């Protein structure tokens, strides 16, 4: 069983723990510049949207140059997005996204992902 990523877990812990601990362990720590708070507020949406976009829009066929990709995955991801906005329920959105992909692939409306 691979353990190669366990050190990465510790690296991510080191990147996370200080943010969690500083305010609890250093009571003098109390204030941040407003611009830093504004920036941090925006990091989550930007990083997560970037991950989603690259995952569904960029493909690297056979180690060649990256190419723009489109397919049923877009429909599934957009359906999930719509449900989260409408119903505020990510689990329901994930179920619908998976169902769309399963049906499309089972009926050969969409191809299986390469690899």
């Amino acid at each position: 069983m691979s353990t190669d990523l366990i050190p990465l877990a510790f690296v991510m812990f080191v990147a996370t723990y200080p943010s969690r601990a500083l305010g609890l362990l250093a009571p003098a720590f109390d204030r941040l510049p407003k611009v830093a708070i504004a920036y941090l507020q925006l990091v989550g949406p930007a990083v997560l949207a970037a991950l989603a976009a690259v995952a569904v829009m960029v493909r690297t066929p056979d180690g060649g140059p990256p190419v723009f990709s489109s397919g049923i995955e877009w429909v599934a991801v957009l359906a999930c997005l719509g449900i989260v906005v409408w119903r505020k329920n990510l689990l329901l959105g994930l179920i619908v996204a998976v169902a769309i992909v399963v049906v499309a692939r089972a009926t050969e409306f969409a191809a299986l992902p390469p690899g």
Partner: protein
Amino acid sequence: MREDVPALTDAPDARAPATPTASTEESRRRLIVEALGIAASAIGFGFVYGLSAREAGFSPLEAMAMSTIVFAGAAQFAAIGYVAAGLAWPAIALLTFLLNARHLLYSAALGPWMTDVPRPRRALMAHVLTDEAFALAIGHFRRIGRTDEGGYWIGAIASTFIPWNLATLAGVYAGGSIADPSLLGIDIIFPAAMIGLAAGLVTGRRELVAAFAGAAIAVSWALLVSPALAIEPSTGVIVGGVVGPLVGILIPASLAAERAPLGTTASAERFSMPGTRLDDDAEGLP
């Protein structure tokens, strides 16, 4: 203490102990009801995380290490994408730091309540400080007007840490028993979860612009710049994740229409697993 910069939250008085509105027993009962809802959500998302991690090639040990050592849902989901895309570890560390830096605001908001708790226990509390734990704890403390360490552990350990880890284990083993995950659409869970989590964090125009800019910059970089520089397309995620917020910040505060400032309960609920809503009359209070 610096006075020339704004406080971590927009309502600094809310960090001070409040007038009690419930007895400890009453508030704990409410805390437990809320914690049960969060535990159910943690089970669902922990299972999905385990499935996705397995699909991305994580071994059960590696997936469990992430859930116990990192214990940060969105960052763990994101790490699946980073690893699958072959991102270098320093870049993963940077993105993880940025994604989890919001915890700084939670710990600062909780800090004044915890001064009587021994430091070693505070150090342990910090590891399990999540969006969910913060939202549960701060609401509970404000209701009773004092610190209740047991209440904190209920919110942090019983409702989140244990369910999340057990569900990760179940998900990763279930994922390992699936012969062809793409036939079951497991590969779509990751991007769908990412866009759903991102949508849940959009609480104003700045977030919306940052999300669109982050996505557009990441894809443009991956398709146009990375081949020219002969670097991995996945570097687009770093560029989009770092530059996207800079674009969002250009929206003037007067037009931002922010509904959930970072460091508040409303913000913590946004970052917690979508579908989980605390029925808290202190909505909007840190």
